[in-house]
């Protein structure tokens, strides 16, 4: 396994008390795989990506527990939670690279893009300037920047939003990272440019076997890109499964609610949307028990008191098919393990599967109207 996060906890000390932004999440991603992490504002999805690279500002933030396991080049595993800052500097940009929503957060406005790209190669690969420049130009061409030989001497502000995003992707790919973390990589872009950027990420995954963690709120982008999907709510993963299962046989009421609340281009028009009532909680005031219970139409007494454990959805119940096997060669046993892992479907909900099956039979049942009148919260969303 290239990369595995086990029971990760990240907390922030704030005036309102301790905020558990990431509250015990586990997931893994292997070479050539795309894991989508879906969540709304305050779900902890971006803190997750910053935690992986240990970019959480301390104070106020701190990783308080868990492991972040990266397979080293020698085939051993290394726990990044225990790694020194010096070691993290070697890993960032070289083995794990990140793309942000706003390219200007990772591009220096005062430096020509060529200088910024070359710096990465000089630092990580000890290349000479001329060599680094040649490699940078080659990569800018690969990510589709026209006239790369001259554009390399531009400043970031001279490029359009889509072009800047490409430069950032080029920078992220310079050192052939094993893992690419893309945090809302296309949210600020127009759809026709988004399509180009997603194609580009897809291409790298196929050609070089890059593992990708794609963090987004856009269910369409996840459906297009991801092999597996983890749905986050209030700092926890509430459901994780293959993309097919998440979209065709979701088990958590939140996942089901999200899916039903989005208007779709490929279904008949005229149906009323079924929103999830209420709003996502502030991480400073996560409801007790299951954090989704105030918005859940299946809420039971136990949901208000006890945090549900993560459990496996029975195989028969999960209609999702495992994704197509990737071309990676391996013996039958390894293949079988991989298939098992790909088919794994876990959910954190007290509700048994049969109840949800009934629920599934009535996809147009209206959300409870009683909760439609929102109560003011502290600017949670």
């Amino acid at each position: 396994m290239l990369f595995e996060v086990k029971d990760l906890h990240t907390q922030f000390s704030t005036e309102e008390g301790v905020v558990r932004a990431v509250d015990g999440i586990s997931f893994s991603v292997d070479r050539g795989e795309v894991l989508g992490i879906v969540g709304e504002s305050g779900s902890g999805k971006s803190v997750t990506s910053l935690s992986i690279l240990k970019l959480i500002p301390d104070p106020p933030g701190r990783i308080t527990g868990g492991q972040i396991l990266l397979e080293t080049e020698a085939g051993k595993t290394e726990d990044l939670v225990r790694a020194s800052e010096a070691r993290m500097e070697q890993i960032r940009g070289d083995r794990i690279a990140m793309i942000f929503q706003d390219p200007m957060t990772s591009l220096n406005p005062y430096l020509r893009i060529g200088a910024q790209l070359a710096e990465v190669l000089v630092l990580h690969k000890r290349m000479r300037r001329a060599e680094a420049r040649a490699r940078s130009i080659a990569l800018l061409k690969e990510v589709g920047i026209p006239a790369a030989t001259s554009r390399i001497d531009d400043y970031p502000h001279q490029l359009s939003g889509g072009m800047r995003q490409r430069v950032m992707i080029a920078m992220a790919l310079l050192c052939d990272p094993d893992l690419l973390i893309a945090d809302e990589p296309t949210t600020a872009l127009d759809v026709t440019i988004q399509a180009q950027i997603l194609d580009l990420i897809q291409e790298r995954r196929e050609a070089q076997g890059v593992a990708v963690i794609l963090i987004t709120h856009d269910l369409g982008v996840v459906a297009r890109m991801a092999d597996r999907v983890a749905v986050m709510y209030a700092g926890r993963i509430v459901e994780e499964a293959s993309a097919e299962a998440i979209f065709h046989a979701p088990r958590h009421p939140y996942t089901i609610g999200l899916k039903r609340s989005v208007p779709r281009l490929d279904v008949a028009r005229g149906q009323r949307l079924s929103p999830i009532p209420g709003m996502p909680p502030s991480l400073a005031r996560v409801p007790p028990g299951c954090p989704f219970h105030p918005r859940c139409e299946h809420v039971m007494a136990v949901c208000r008191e006890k945090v549900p454990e993560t459990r496996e959805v029975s195989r028969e119940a999960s209609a999702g098919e495992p994704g197509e096997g990737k071309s990676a060669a391996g013996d039958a046993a390894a293949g079988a393990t991989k298939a098992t892992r790909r088919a794994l479907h876990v959910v954190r909900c007290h509700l048994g599967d049969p109840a949800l099956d009934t629920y599934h039979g009535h996809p147009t049942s209206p959300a409870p109207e009683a909760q439609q009148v929102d109560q003011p919260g502290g600017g949670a969303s």
Partner: protein
Amino acid sequence: MSEAAVKAERAGGTPLLEVRDLRVHFPVRRGLLQRQVGAVRAVDGVSFEVRRGSTLGLVGESGCGKSTTGRAILRLVEATSGSVRLDGVELTTLGAGALRRARREMQMIFQDPYASLNPRMTVLDIIAEPLRTHRVVRSRDEAATEVARLMEMVGLAPAYMRRYPHEFSGGQRQRVGIARAIALRPKLVVADEPVSALDVSIQAQILNLLEDLQRDLGLTYLFVAHDLAAVRHLSDEIAVMYLGRIVERSETEALFAQPLHPYTQALLSAIPVPDPVVERQRRRLVLVGEVPSPLDPPAGCHFHTRCPYRMDRCLTEPPQLLERAPGRWVACHLDAVLRTLDQGPSVPTLPMVATPVTSLEP
């Protein structure tokens, strides 16, 4: 179409909003003397009408001029030329007093509920402001009663009317903005990206609210947005803009079933659908390059630099927006688009909606 629209149609009513050849050019000035060296042609000859009680979706990518069109209609920016008639009244030439009176009839919902509400005013004062300006309410009590009614209409508890915007979530703030917009019972509401700043689970709440208000108040919407799924959900008709011009206009169902302009096709095919099985089967028309600058738009058809079907004629001659089939307005020189769509190499429509277009001979 809403009931009100149906009624208006039966009555043979004129459209509520008629826009003719609207242009908005922003001068670009340079140098010490600030001489005009060019103009950004943000809106470059746009015509459409919106039926009473219906919704027209205005879509396109950033910089296409859709927001400027909405603002020019409300005269939040001044049109360079062209005509805008609301209920038969020409708006572009109204004097200050008449314009103020006309503003009762047309309101706007903004994208950013954080930036569009005055943080120092209570929700009561924010919603009551237009009521006071237009002397609809005469006392504080009357204002509070009316604001309470409006808050209930948009799904907010009136008990919170004395709170400030920062005490509300994004979705609730958007409800406040909507309450303010409908306070004067306007005929036309221009909604500019009203849900794009909101969380996914909240967007549906606001879209449903807009739908309810249209039904209950007989509102007419100009819905400006880039999210085509949301636009499709709410709109009776859709106009697609590219670089300041409308390239295609059609009834919603027909547009999505069979987009005719190559840009509309590309736009629809670029939007990922939340279904991995559908996504795997889709064929896409991926556009190369980016939208050219509106400061120096390409000659001829503005889309020719990215169009996979470009012909010589497209480089020089701007295509007119013509009705190529009943209710289908397309600005494209390519007759072949209409005929070859069903066998074309890159028909990008969604699997379930592909239908032949044999009836669309010009």
